[in-house]
């Protein structure tokens, strides 16, 4: 690979249920990222937007929508949609532009305004759409998270208390994060008293949907040097691999897994970081901090194992021992994770990278992981989308 691509600016609009137009969140995040980078908006040569599907046509062409809102200045533009991995695909597009020499500096941006309650499928009678079909027969998003959680209980002996500890830990992390939506400490009793959503997961085990926006300014190392950003975190790897047939785990929105009659079964979640580690020339032993997609508390435990940060079945023990807290030997979700943010789909993968940027620069305040050198993200969305990004100092 040619010279490194580095992150020279990061910004976020606070997550919440603000009920305003998504464009405003994106613009606020972009302006913070531009200030952080110390460059003028008119210096940006490429705008890479992550799309939202819930805000009409402006959301489908998010890259152009944000470029217009910030003031047309002739930059080239692209929009990516890949469910929860939209932000990583937007990051990939921008990095490719820079690696190929077609741009020196780019804005990566995503924002969303979300409805209340369960995420629901598109309208109409559509029996050819697996997302429509599964809702018709009563299978919602928490169903899948709960099936994974129960599986952990059945094969590893995890308990609901083990899951609650993840919530308590993430809530503690998010307490001082001014960008988080939920900044409140919880006890085991609080989690146990929250209503059951999909046994064994309670309301406080499952993440909400939120409004929010996140942005990154990325640049060639040469550009960063030119403007005096000598210590900008480097993008060491981005993985957006698809699953390998036969995919072994039941995945949203499907009603059945692949059949493993002709080909052996593979784990998609484990494949995502495997490619990232290979590209970065690193392994789990190099990781100082991770931001993972805790759509549920139990799913954080799955990710810890899929990232190779401990052996299968050991993540609950790691959490019990306090190892996954800031200050522990393998801090997970120092931002507070989705537990404190709720999910703003096109912004979330970018927000993960924002947090790692601040962690690697030592700018994370009270939630700082001391001496963080390498950070990894992981997320997964519908229809075989997912991503894992590695940053290094």
């Amino acid at each position: 690979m040619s010279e490194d691509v580095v992150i020279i600016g990061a910004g976020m609009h606070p997550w919440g249920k603000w009920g305003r137009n998504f464009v405003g969140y994106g613009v606020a995040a972009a302006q913070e990222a531009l200030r952080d980078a110390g460059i003028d908006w008119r210096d940006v040569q490429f705008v890479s937007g992550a799309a939202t599907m819930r805000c009409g046509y402006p959301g489908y062409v998010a890259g152009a929508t944000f470029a217009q809102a910030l003031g047309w200045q002739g930059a080239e533009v692209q929009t990516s949609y890949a469910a929860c991995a939209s932000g990583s695909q937007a990051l990939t597009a921008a990095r490719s532009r820079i690696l190929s020499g077609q741009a020196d500096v780019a804005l990566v941006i995503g924002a969303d305004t979300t409805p209340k309650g369960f995420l629901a499928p598109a309208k109409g009678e559509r029996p050819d759409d697996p997302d429509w079909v599964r809702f018709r027969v009563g299978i919602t998003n928490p169903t899948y998270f709960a099936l994974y959680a129960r599986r952990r209980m059945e094969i590893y002996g995890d308990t609901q208390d083990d899951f609650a500890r993840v919530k308590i830990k993430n809530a503690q992390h998010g307490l001082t994060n001014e960008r988080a939506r939920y900044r409140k400490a919880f006890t085991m009793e609080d989690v146990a008293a929250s209503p059951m959503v999909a046994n064994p997961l309670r309301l406080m085990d499952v993440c909400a949907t939120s409004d929010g926006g996140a942005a990154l300014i990325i640049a060639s190392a040469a550009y960063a040097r030119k403007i005096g950003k000598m210590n900008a975190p480097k993008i060491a790897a981005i993985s957006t691999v698809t699953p390998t047939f036969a995919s072994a785990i039941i995945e949203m929105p499907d009603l059945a897994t692949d059949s493993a009659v002709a080909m052996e079964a593979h784990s998609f979640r484990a494949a995502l970081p495997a490619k990232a580690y290979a590209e970065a020339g690193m392994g789990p032993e190099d990781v100082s901090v991770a931001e993972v997609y805790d759509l549920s508390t139990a799913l954080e435990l799955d990710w810890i194992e899929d990232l190779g940060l401990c052996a299968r079945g050991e993540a609950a023990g790691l959490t019990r021992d306090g190892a996954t807290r800031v200050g522990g030997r393998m801090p997970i979700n120092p931002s507070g994770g989705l537990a404190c943010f709720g999910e703003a789909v096109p912004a979330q993968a970018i927000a993960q990278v924002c947090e790692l940027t601040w962690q690697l620069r030592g700018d994370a305040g009270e939630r700082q992981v001391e001496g963080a050198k390498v950070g990894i993200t992981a997320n997964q969305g519908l229809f075989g989308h997912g991503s894992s990004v590695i940053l290094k100092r």
Partner: protein
Amino acid sequence: MSEADPVLPGWFTTGAEPHLIGSRCSACGTYYFPKLESFCRNPACESTQFETVELSRTGKLWSFTDACYTPPEPYIAADPFIPYAIAAVELDREKMIVLGQVVEGVGVDALRAGLPMELVVETIPDAVDPKGKLVWKWKPMEDAR
């Protein structure tokens, strides 16, 4: 009174011993549910030939949960909403996991991984048809309880 119609016509047979209707690639033997008849998804297989098959109507419970809140449309819920359990069942011959509701009256407390399960049909409410619609459900096998 005539029997309710299937919620998804052509997805399963009805009666005392119903089956899910899937397909099987004529070249590599991979099973599909729902039925696939276009291009085999095994990347090592270029087949476009499929047979329609009845999937195994018994399997082992892989994992389970329940729905404590009313799902959004297009699910049509009873009013008041009656929570239901959900099963992910591994089919041995097909080497695949299939989801479905669990029969009425069986909650998560009655379930554990590895439990033998069989396919049955039950009705779920429908927006138009007062008889409701038939849907496949999983039921713990009698001799295992």
